[in-house]
């Protein structure tokens, strides 16, 4: 493989990398100047579509296709929302980007607004990111002063304002229509689709929602070209006409039981084993891997036998996981109990379910209660069947909820049951000798 040159993290680590001065000194906003001079908005859209860039926030939807859903010749306003609500457990790369290179994201946003005709952009930033907030805010001020934002940007007809909208500690705001509701000042209940945001989004106007890492990629594709982008990553599967491939660099958040947790940039398709051994300094305390969350908690777990899974948009699916997710890799060592893993996961989703859809609200809450009971040593084997039943009936995939939060809650349960059932059964047998006597669910439920 040719040597890989990071672009998304290229400035991280340089002194004052968050300032306009340093960003411009490393070629920042040169692409914006050139694009505004040489390319029509439709050319920009075509370039992004040709690059087959897919969203970096979790769902992997092709960005160019998303933009193309906007109505043509709309009188405006059109809005762009930059999703910086990064709340998926195990994910922190957006934070690193915003703290160290906020201008890269702003340049991506300005280019995306030029391409889509958006006249205002809202960065939805989670409240807990205080340093990112300060630096983004400062960077936006610098842009207004330098003429990169405001009216008639760089002397062209393009006018754009960027605002930061801060969240208030709710995971659901990362879902694109939950995010839109939250900007509108409402509870962040995801909307039923259609209508999709592209036609009726923020303030009922055509809207694009993109993750901040995706927007940063937009800048680099326009700077370096489609060929460069497609020279990185994994080409489409020739046997699957619907696979658009997994091109480009991706940020991976490495955390858990590793020696060197952190954010790294690598080509899509890197294996979990490479990430752990070459980029995270191996498993801590000289231990072995027991399980790995490949792309944020929602995606489920891989077992130690599945470490050669490539992290591209299809790799984790082939190993039973929900998908590439956010690229948040959490490593769990051989001493960590999968009961604790599932307990932690179920607690998270029960806490973060927004409560709008009954199957998710009740399903996540009951899964948590069952796990609490198992952990406390009062589990029954039949509880595992019950968990399986819950996990198969909540979410978009079984078709019982509006958004995908419940699918994210279900996948850790499904994959743990599929790959670590022996350990869960063993725990129940050891802690509750009566537990392997089957009971009917109705008797099993009351704690």
């Amino acid at each position, binding site marked *: 493989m040719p040597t890989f040159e990071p672009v998304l993290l290229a400035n991280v680590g340089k002194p004052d990398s968050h300032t306009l001065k340093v960003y411009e000194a490393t070629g920042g906003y040169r692409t914006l100047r050139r694009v505004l001079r040489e390319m029509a908005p439709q050319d920009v859209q075509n370039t992004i579509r040709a690059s087959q860039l897919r969203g970096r926030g979790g769902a992997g939807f092709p960005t160019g296709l998303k933009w193309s859903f906007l109505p043509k010749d709309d009188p405006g306003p059109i809005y762009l929302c930059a999703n910086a609500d990064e709340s998926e*457990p195990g*994910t922190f790369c957006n934070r690193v980007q915003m703290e160290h290179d906020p201008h890269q994201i702003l340049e991506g946003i300005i280019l995306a607004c030029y391409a889509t005709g958006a006249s205002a952009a809202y960065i939805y930033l989670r409240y807990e990111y205080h340093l990112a907030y300060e630096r983004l805010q400062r960077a936006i001020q610098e842009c207004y002063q330098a003429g990169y934002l405001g009216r008639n940007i760089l002397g062209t007809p393009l006018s754009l304002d960027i605002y930061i909208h801060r969240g208030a500690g*709710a995971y659901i705001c990362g879902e694109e229509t939950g995010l839109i509701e939250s900007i509108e000042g409402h509870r962040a209940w995801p909307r039923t689709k259609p209508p999709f945001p592209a036609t009726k989004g923020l303030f009922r106007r055509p809207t694009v929602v993109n993750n901040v890492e995706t927007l940063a990629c937009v800048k680099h594709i326009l700077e370096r070209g489609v060929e460069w982008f497609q020279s990185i990553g994994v080409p489409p599967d020739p046997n699957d006409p619907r696979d658009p491939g997994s091109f480009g660099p991706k940020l991976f958040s490495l955390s*858990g039981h590793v020696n060197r947790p952190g954010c790294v940039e690598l080509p899509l398709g890197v294996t979990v084993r490479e990430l752990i051994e070459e980029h995270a300094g191996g498993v801590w305390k000289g231990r072995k891997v027991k399980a790995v969350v490949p792309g944020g908690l929602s995606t489920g777990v891989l077992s130690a036998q599945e470490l050669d899974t490539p992290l591209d948009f299809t790799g984790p699916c082939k190993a039973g996981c929900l998908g590439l997710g956010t690229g948040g890799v959490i490593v769990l060592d051989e001493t960590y109990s999968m009961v604790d893993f599932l307990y932690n*996961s179920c607690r998270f989703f029960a806490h973060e379910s927004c409560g709008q859809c009954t199957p998710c609200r009740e399903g996540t809450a009951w899964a948590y209660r069952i796990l609490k009971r198992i952990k406390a040593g009062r589990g029954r084997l039949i509880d595992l069947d019950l968990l399986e039943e819950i996990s198969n009936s909540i979410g978009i995939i079984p078709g019982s909820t509006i958004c995908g939060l419940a699918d994210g809650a279900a996948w850790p349960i499904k994959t743990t049951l599929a790959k670590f059932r022996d350990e869960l059964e063993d725990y129940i047998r050891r802690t509750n000798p009566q537990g392997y006597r089957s009971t009917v669910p109705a008797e099993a439920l009351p704690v």
Partner: protein
Amino acid sequence: MEAVLTPEIRQQIEACYPKYPTREAVILPALHRIQEALGWVPPKAVEELAQLLGVPPARVQDTLSFYGFFAQDQPLGRTRIWVCRSLSCGARGGEELLEYLCQRLGIRPGQTTPDGRITLEVAECIGACDYAPAILAGRTLWKNMTKEKIDQMLESLP
């Protein structure tokens, strides 16, 4: 009765108007301003905010009650400490640190010390997994925490 939203808070809220095409959209940033200034969002502030924005008080209350972030019943302590216990932090000792903090402060998560100094909270993933176990105290992120570092942190807080 005197208004709880001071002229200064009102000014800060009104400064948000140009950012959004509707007044409803100002609710969330306004709630942040109010909580930062008063330490909580008392019922009277809800009424006054609704009046200021020209929306029904129920609209404000609906948004307020959805986000667990806002304190509605009593003011928060001077510093709000969030202990992350999601997977990456939990697997590296976050739960034990939470227990230690509970003991040190003599309160449970969600409670405030009697002297009004600290409110202790459990957090779901705060996006600092590279520094696990992590704690957010006010606006400061405390990284790679241990019991000793918690002692230091507590000493440094007002």
